[in-house]
């Protein structure tokens, strides 16, 4: 499904762009269809940067990202936009990535409209279907994000992502801001989605126990490099 080869992301700074911060420094891994790779590391080890570079949200410095047999690290323009629907990201703090001025309905409908994924008259039907998948109450559709709790917002974010029928989701600390009960809800939701829709996950977290529960394989990251892999046995 996804194979990353010798991926690097370096930041240059200073007057003559000499100082280098090697956020991601030569990373290799692969994720099979419908499987989860967990990525564990301390804050500042480059795991979030890696997640974003894989999605081409950040430009890789070097290396290749092979998604579904194609090297996407060199894609441009329209094909990159199309790629955007197939690969998605869930952020740590849904509050800061959902537009506070939009109602929940429009937040979920926006990608449907932008990518013309569904006919206008079927939109409502599709959105109802989506929020049922993430078990959100229908009455929340016409509220604003600030009226929702952290767990509900994360569900909205997931529903929005699902509207694009992604094949790969990068989950960047999706539960680290949540309470234990809510974390359990969101994690089981994600796992259910994976089984139902055969989605691959790159699951990023600093909590080894959460990653162990979610993943088929775990990669340990330190200072921009993956130092170890471990298969999770069940």
């Amino acid at each position, binding site marked *: 499904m996804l194979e990353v080869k010798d991926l690097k992301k370096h930041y240059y700074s200073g007057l003559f762009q000499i100082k280098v911060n090697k956020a991601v420094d030569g990373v290799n891994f692969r994720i099979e269809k419908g499987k989860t790779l967990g990525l564990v590391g*301390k*804050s500042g080890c480059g795991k979030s940067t890696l997640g974003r570079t894989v999605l081409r949200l950040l430009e890789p410095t070097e290396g290749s990202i092979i998604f579904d047999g194609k090297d996407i690290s060199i894609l441009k323009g329209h094909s990159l936009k199309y790629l955007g629907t197939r690969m998605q990201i869930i952020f740590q703090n849904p509050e800061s990535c959902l537009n506070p001025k939009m109602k929940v309905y429009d937040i979920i409908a926006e990608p449907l409209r932008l990518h013309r994924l569904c006919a206008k008259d079927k939109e409502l039907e599709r959105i109802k279907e989506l929020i049922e998948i993430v*078990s959100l109450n229908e009455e929340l559709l016409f509220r604003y994000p600030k009226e929702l*709790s*952290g*767990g*509900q917002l994360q569900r909205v974010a997931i529903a929005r992502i699902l509207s694009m029928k992604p094949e790969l989701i990068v989950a960047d600390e999706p539960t*680290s*801001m949540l*309470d*234990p*009960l*809510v*974390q*359990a*809800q969101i*994690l*089981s939701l994600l796992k259910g989605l994976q089984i139902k829709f055969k989605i691959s996950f790159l699951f990023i977290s*600093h*909590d*080894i*126990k*959460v990653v*162990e*529960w*979610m993943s088929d394989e775990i990669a340990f990251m330190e200072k921009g490099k993956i130092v170890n892999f471990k298969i999770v046995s069940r």
Partner: protein
Amino acid sequence: MSISFLSTQLLSVENLNVSFKTSKGLVKANENISFEIKEGEIFGLIGETGCGKTTLGKALLRLLSNNARIEGRIVYRGKNILSLSEKEMRSLRGKEIGIMLQDSSICFNPVLSVGSQIAEIYRYHEGMKKKDAEKKASEMLELVGIDSSRKSEYPHQFSGGMLQRVMMVVALALKPRLLIADEPTKGLDPDIKLQILEIIAKLVKKENSSMLLITHDLDVSTKLTDRTAVMYAGEIVEIGKTATVISDPKHPYTFALLHSLPEKGLMNVSGQSPSLIFPPSGCRYHPRCSNQLVDCSKIHPTLLEHVDDHFARCLFSEKNSKNVKREPHLIPDTPSPGCAEVGIRHC
């Protein structure tokens, strides 16, 4: 009272009610909260976001906003905190009761250096000279493992873990008898989390102080506390020795919290925390509870002693355990004399 310990009581909270007037209605953040903290004890208060635990911590020092209404009694070493004057209150804050507020990154003045914010405490409360206070500040920083050369730096130059440690220094600077720590490890990496907790526990034990540890992290509470109270939707649903609460929870919410951790099987409880404006009828947890009885939606259970010193607010557990003592938790037999004089306080 049913609890009899040799050690003396430092703080007792009796029937504390805190509510906030908002445009959407009266938010009942704390209802009928009663508990006590003994000298040298670490007391854990567990609950989810929005259950009122932070409000409780701030109420103990009367640090709530103007729209808060506090009723009940908070007795600290024989004095009712709610009837003290603002001046008496100031002599209590910091000196007798220290508090580590949630989110250290916004609790420091951005335009004053970290060292001067610590030194300020000694200069203000102990009348130290500037030089001595700064020396003392350096010593305190070294104590929590921060190089004292960094004292002239500003809060934004410190990482989250370091600020958390500075916060600790500030709260413990005057050696208070009680430390209130509100989520001292929120958002930190696991290894830094452990370091912080080790340091806090060491410092608190060294001075034989007590601590109220407010957290949503069961791990943290299990490792550190002597006794634990679990809060749900503004009330205490279970209280007892940490070891027994963790090993044999009497309230289904506590059980759910314990088993929701991934390493415990990630038990999935549907629904979400209720609103504090319109809490559910009967038991507040009943809409989410798997052991629900018919009465649960009608009768609001009281906090009863199930085993020795182990109280829970649950009809199901009452029914299923034989030796429930019909003694409610910490309600004085006769109205205490202080009640009338205090009544209600607008903070």
